[in-house]
């Protein structure tokens, strides 16, 4: 296998995932949270593709493509909601959007 060893991919993926997870947990802007979720998804994609190459099989890549499709639709819905919030002049702050609580 050409290129770096598998460990590097795993480490990079772990870093990306942690960055994304922290972004989801710490930031308040829904836009940033959405971006962080994308980062998490892509870290998983990176891992999938890396192992797929390591083992010389295609299923991981196929799975990565479907993850991308899911991510794209999620962005559509998420951005749509954010635009709708913006149009109604609602603060883009997830801590203030807490109507759904027990």
């Amino acid at each position, binding site marked *: 296998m050409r290129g770096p060893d598998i460990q590097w991919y795993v480490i990079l993926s772990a870093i990306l995932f942690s960055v994304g997870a922290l972004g*989801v947990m710490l930031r308040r802007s829904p836009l940033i949270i959405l971006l962080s979720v994308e980062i998490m998804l892509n870290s998983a994609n990176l891992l999938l593709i890396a192992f797929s190459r390591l083992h010389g099989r295609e299923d991981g890549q196929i799975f990565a493509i479907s993850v991308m499709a899911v991510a794209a639709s999620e962005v559509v819905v998420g951005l749509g909601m954010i635009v709708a919030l913006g149009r109604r002049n609602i603060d883009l702050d997830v*801590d203030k959007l807490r109507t759904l*609580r027990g």
Partner: protein
Amino acid sequence: MNAAAWTCLLLPLASTVLITLGGTRISRRLAGYISTATTMGAFVAAVVAFVQLLGKDADDRIHLTTSWTWLSAGPYHFGFTLLTDQLSVVMMLVVAGVGSLIVAYSVGYMDGDDEERRYFAYMSLFVFSMLLLVQGGNLLLLLAGWGMVGLSSYLLIGYHQDRPSAVAAAKKAFVMNAFGDATMALALFLLIAHTGKLGYADVFALSPHGGTVANLIALGLLGGAVAKSAQLPLHTWLPDAMEGPTPVSALIHAATMVTAGVYLIVRCHPLFENAYVIEDLAAGLGAATLLMAGLIALVQTDIKRVIAYSTMSQIGYMFVGAGLGAYPNGMFHLMTHAFFKALLFMAAGLAIHAVVGEQDIRKLAGIGKLMPFTKIVFLIGSLALVGVFPFAGFFSKDSILAAALAHGWYGDVIFAAGIVGTFLTGVYAFRLFFIVFTGEPSAFAREHFHAHHGKEGPLSMRWTVGVLAALSVIGGFLQFAPFWHPLSTWLEPVAAPIAEPSNAQEWLASGVALAVGLSGVWLAWAIYSANRIKAPAPVKLFERKFYWDELYDLAWYRSSDLVTRGLSTIVERPLIAGSMSAVSGAFGLGSRELSVAQNGLVRTYALALASGLAVLTVVFLAAR
């Protein structure tokens, strides 16, 4: 023979199927014609079977044909067996013969009703069920027919389903009959346990003689007979059953179905002879019923109810005959009773039809002047009912009373009851006749009477009543015990009597019964027509029908109501309902407490997810 028996059985069934499946493609009138034609066809087939039997030797007249094995259960096999013998052929003739007259009468009586098709489908179903009952070659088929006549009776009593009283009466009849069906089924279970068979000949040969088992078997069968024939103590459904249309009362609740109990006793007489206590009990119940029904009939004001009580009373006579072992006499009375009681109901139906459904004798009073034909046929029916020579009842009822004389002291007691019953019959029958058919028409009758094209009713109603009137006059001459007795001779091989009165006893019974019956008629005339004697005030006990309904209400309804209420307060509310609300309360509380965690902050959820994942990871790593 087999072809004739099968035709007789299946024609009415074919009519039911045809009318039911035909629906609105068959006109209402055509449905009536189909039903009439098939019942008459069944009668013709019964006549053919009878003639074929006549052509055989006396000891070669019992024909049993098994068409296929109907039920198999382990070592037990029960065939779909038809029995054509002397007894079943007599019943086939009565059922199909009187049945076809009554169905033909219905064509006129039900004309203009909204649901004639349903009516005629039910009628044909009833005729089929009754024929199955009498033609079935084993006790299982008998029970099947027994249940099915109960069903068709239920359907026809509740025919006016928009009338709550009719629906209630139908339910009452069905439940009381179901009680009898159950005791009969228990008797069959005992028979299967002790003989393994249900065919008549096998059962008669193998069933135990005497002892508890024989008594229980006979008692179970008697329970079925008593419920179906409206004898004490299961009689309260019959008067209420008068909610059905009048031809139904004539066919089911006078001529055929209610006499099935007598047929059962005669058919299974070896089983009853093995348990003579029960056979005596049957005669005793019959005697008690005929007295009680006669007393109640004295004070009823509904024309059909009076006739219904008289039916109970007359079946009481048949039970006396069958219970005392005078089987041919019981069957003979069954036959003549079918003629004159159907006649009474149908003549009453003519009157009811002419005044658009009124049944109260005080309102119908004096209608005889407007309806001379009805008056005459009703008079014929009443005379036959009281047993005045030469009408049918004279020959059949008196031979039963004579048989009672030939039965020791027990028979003498029953004879006395029967004689009192004859007096009561004379009074109530002619009370009805004098009130309704003689004197000046009441204002109500004058106002509501409407002639049918100048006649007293449609042609179909008049000719059938005429035929039955003729039969009520001449039918009795079939058998006059001191001189000739073809019916007894005919039934000898299947129902040999164990009580045979001497000629002297016959004459004595006839003479006394005739004198007493006529004195009853005289009393009715003196009170209700000539006004020589002031009418006594109605006795409360008779008006309330000896409080049987109240007794059953107390014994079954109120007691179970009490038990249910008790269980409800002691068990249901504290234990079951209480534990349920405790469980639901616990869940409600828990969920309210837990819902605090759902605080609406997305970041908290994300943190919970991440920490949950972390815990899982640690657990998996540790477990490995």
